């Protein structure tokens, strides 16, 4: 008989480390059904049939955020056999707030007081016995980082599993409230699982909308309960939710007073605060941030990354694999077309992308370190002001920042954003920021058509950022994204030395999902591309073609090219390059190379500049560049979008939005650019002007949903009065 143990605790309490400790590599990571929240579960090490379900890091079990709702739903409907509540010992008051809510569920719970090593270092003493008896469950010391105590916690939890909770739950609330709760319990007895009676009663007292909906109580009963609640509210001169919250904290304060002896009271400046004096200093914060980011990118992309990628591409794939592989295949008399398929198609295509992996792993590693150390929270704190202006929060900055290296981990980083609307919006717009793979495209056109001017790259980033901002403003005024601005009330966790295990694990997780995508999608599309490029119909006969202008790819390209004519680059080569860019953006350069007859080109495509200059004008080149930079990202990134959105409709909407936006911008740029460079006024110029006006309207119109927000807030107030 298998048992389920839920792992619940605050964010930054060391839950992830404990989870990794308990489950080792036997983990499964996915999403909770229908939502963008990550779901992690794993088998408990050393036990054959015990599953540890990691719940999202939560501060409370309120009905207001997605993570809390997901956790509640799991606890109440999946009914785990035990709960391990991980508590940050250095931050015990706020952590115990969740504890008081978990124990109300009547599920056997064991508390793991984590970071006990830091607690001891601070000189504080926690009396486990007193703490345990005050909360009605056992408390165990752990230091997930040092690996102590985790086994004990797991064993005890497994032993508790399925057993009824011993003893009665502590009376957290005062007389009249407990009285009202007892009344409510009576009224709903039989309607809910007996174990959860108290939890439901307290939620009803708080007028929890989700619980009210779930229980489908009839209006007379609700009215009856309402009378009890109002009586309490009048007596204590506060609203029900606040009463419960205040009394919980009051109870915790008493518990902490008896069970915890703190060495320092009052305002102490600990190590983290001292570091923050410099790092979030009014004057130094931004320069320090710029310096740190510069180092991260310099190390991962320019020096180590470049070297490793270069070696992977040239030596590993170039000489060792392609060279030897061709020779070997020829040696065993494999048909030339199959050799070509394997060497040029598969190895060439996939290899180009795999070549990126070392660079990305190093980037992921650096960013994981920054995250684990606790710096990312500071980044959100510093940048919030900017993002608040268009309806997001500082937390949306981190995905964009990471996205400037690679959109894949950038999109994955959106998981830390609590508000689902903001999360979706961030997922959608992260790939506007030029990633590392788009740099070759910029370098290519800058060199071919703009004399290597640095302005091109700068303007590309500017356009990317502008696209994010404009999208934020436009989307916030649309129904799916409108609504109350998410509260930006964020903890700044203490800095701590990054845990090597965690860092390597999260680096590997990101790197692996990228490699997986490369392995599947990119492999398949490389094969398809190889085929379409090398085969065609010549004089009515289908077969291998010499001149790729007659290939199937050219035929398809020619068929689709007119779509891009209004953007100025309606020839088949440009169309094809754009499409290969969907596989991996750096393919655009390589594809142009191949199409102009060069099997291999330098990163910035210097060999083909002359060809490009012949086929493009500065304006059409810029338009092409903009379209490719803003449109749907590479398959790997699209895969990341799909995974994070966890919803096909939203994924398609995101990709559609990006492409339409890119098309619109390129259209406006090209058509109006043409007008200014002396071109004739045409049908498409008219369309471009209409599009531009459309943009301005969407940007500047009044937000009809801000009234909706105000009215909703008003509604809540009247109910509580």
């Amino acid at each position, binding site marked *: 008989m298998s048992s389920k143990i839920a792992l619940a605790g605050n964010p930054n309490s060391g839950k992830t480390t404990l989870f990794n400790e308990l489950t080792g590599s036997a983990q499964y990571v996915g999403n909770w059904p229908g939502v963008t929240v990550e779901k992690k579960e794993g088998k408990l090490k050393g036990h054959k049939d015990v599953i540890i379900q990691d719940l999202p890091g939560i*501060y*409370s079990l*309120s009905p*207001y*955020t997605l993570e809390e709702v997901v956790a509640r739903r799991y606890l109440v409907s999946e009914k785990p056999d035990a709960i391990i509540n991980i508590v940050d010992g*250095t*931050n*015990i*008051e*706020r952590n115990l*707030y969740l504890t008081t809510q978990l124990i109300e569920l009547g599920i056997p719970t064991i508390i793991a007081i984590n970071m006990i090593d830091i607690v001891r270092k601070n000189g504080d003493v926690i009396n486990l016995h007193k703490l345990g008896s005050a909360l009605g469950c056992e408390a165990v010391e752990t230091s997930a980082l040092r690996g102590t105590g985790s086994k004990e916690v797991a064993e005890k939890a497994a032993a508790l599993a399925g057993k009824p909770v011993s003893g009665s739950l502590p009376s957290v609330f005062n007389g009249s409230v407990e009285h009202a709760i007892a009344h409510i319990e009576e009224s709903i007895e039989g309607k809910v699982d007996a174990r959860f009676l108290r939890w439901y009663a307290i939620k009803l007292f708080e007028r929890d909308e989700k619980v009210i909906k779930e229980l489908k109580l009839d209006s007379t009963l609700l009215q009856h309960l309402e009378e009890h609640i109002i009586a309490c509210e009048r007596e204590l001169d*506060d609203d029900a*939710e*606040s009463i419960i*919250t*205040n009394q919980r*904290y009051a109870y915790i304060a008493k518990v902490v007073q008896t069970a915890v002896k703190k060495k320092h009271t009052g*305002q102490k400046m600990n190590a*983290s*605060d001292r570091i*923050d004096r410099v790092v*979030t*200093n*009014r*004057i130094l*914060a*931004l320069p320090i941030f710029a310096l740190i980011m510069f180092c991260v990118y310099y190390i991962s992309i320019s020096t180590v990354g470049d070297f490793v990628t270069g070696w992977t591409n040239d030596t590993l794939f170039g000489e060792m694999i392609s060279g030897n592989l061709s020779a070997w295949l020829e040696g065993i008399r494999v048909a030339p077309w199959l050799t070509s398929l394997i060497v040029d198609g598969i190895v060439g295509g996939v290899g180009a992308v795999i070549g990126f992996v070392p660079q990305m792993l190093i980037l992921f590693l650096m960013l994981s370190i920054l995250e684990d150390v606790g710096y990312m929270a500071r980044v959100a*704190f*510093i*940048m*919030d*002001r*900017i993002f*608040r202006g268009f309806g997001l929060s500082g937390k949306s900055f981190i995905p964009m920042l990471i996205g400037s290296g690679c959109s894949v981990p950038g999109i994955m980083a959106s998981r830390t954003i609590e508000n689902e609307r903001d999360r979706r919006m961030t997922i959608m717009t992260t790939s506007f920021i030029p990633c590392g793979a788009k740099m070759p495209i910029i370098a290519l056109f800058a060199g071919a058509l703009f004399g290597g001017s640095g302005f091109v790259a700068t303007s590309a980033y500017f356009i990317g950022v502008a696209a994010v901002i404009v999208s934020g403003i436009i989307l916030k005024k649309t129904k799916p994204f409108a609504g*109350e601005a*998410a*509260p*930006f*009330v*964020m*903890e*700044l*966790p*203490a800095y701590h030395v990054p845990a090597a295990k965690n860092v390597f694990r999260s680096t590997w997780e990101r790197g692996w999902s990228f490699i997986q995508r490369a392995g599947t999608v990119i492999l398949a599309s490389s094969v398809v591309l190889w085929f379409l490029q090398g085969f065609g119909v010549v004089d009515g006969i289908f077969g291998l073609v010499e001149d790729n202008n007659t290939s199937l790819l050219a035929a398809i390209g020619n068929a689709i090219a007119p779509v891009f004519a209004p953007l100025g680059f309606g020839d088949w080569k440009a169309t094809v390059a754009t499409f290969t860019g969907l596989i991996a953006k750096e393919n655009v350069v390589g594809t142009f190379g191949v199409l102009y007859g060069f099997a291999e080109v330098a990163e910035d495509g210097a060999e083909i500049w002359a060809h490009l200059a012949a086929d493009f004008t500065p304006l059409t080149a810029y338009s092409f560049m903009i379209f490719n930079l803003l449109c749907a990202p590479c398959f790997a990134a699209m895969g990341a979008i799909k995974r994070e959105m966890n919803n096909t409709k939203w994924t398609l909407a995101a990709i559609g939005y990006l492409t339409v936006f890119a098309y619109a911008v390129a259209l406006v740029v090209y058509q109006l650019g043409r007008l200014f460079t002396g071109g004739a006024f045409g049908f498409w110029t008219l369309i471009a002007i209409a599009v531009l006006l459309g943009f301005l309207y969407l940007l500047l119109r009044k937000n009809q949903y801000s009234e909706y927000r105000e009215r*909703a*807030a008003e509604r*809540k*107030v009247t109910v*509580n009065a």
Partner: protein
Amino acid sequence: MKTLRNVGVGETVTVQKLNGAGAIKRRIMDMGVTKGVDIYVRKVAPLGDPIEVTVRGYELSIRKSDAEMIEVN
């Protein structure tokens, strides 16, 4: 009416009352900002918003517009 928004850096105040409603108010309370608790204003972010406060022994960042909901003495 003095709110957390008007408190200067370095000052410690006590929460008297929480205004507002719904998700924001609940969030603020869930994070430990309740009637009677002491709050120390540690600093303001480089761009002027949000502010960083110490409450119940940990650091919390909160926007000035949300801090306005917290009445202090």
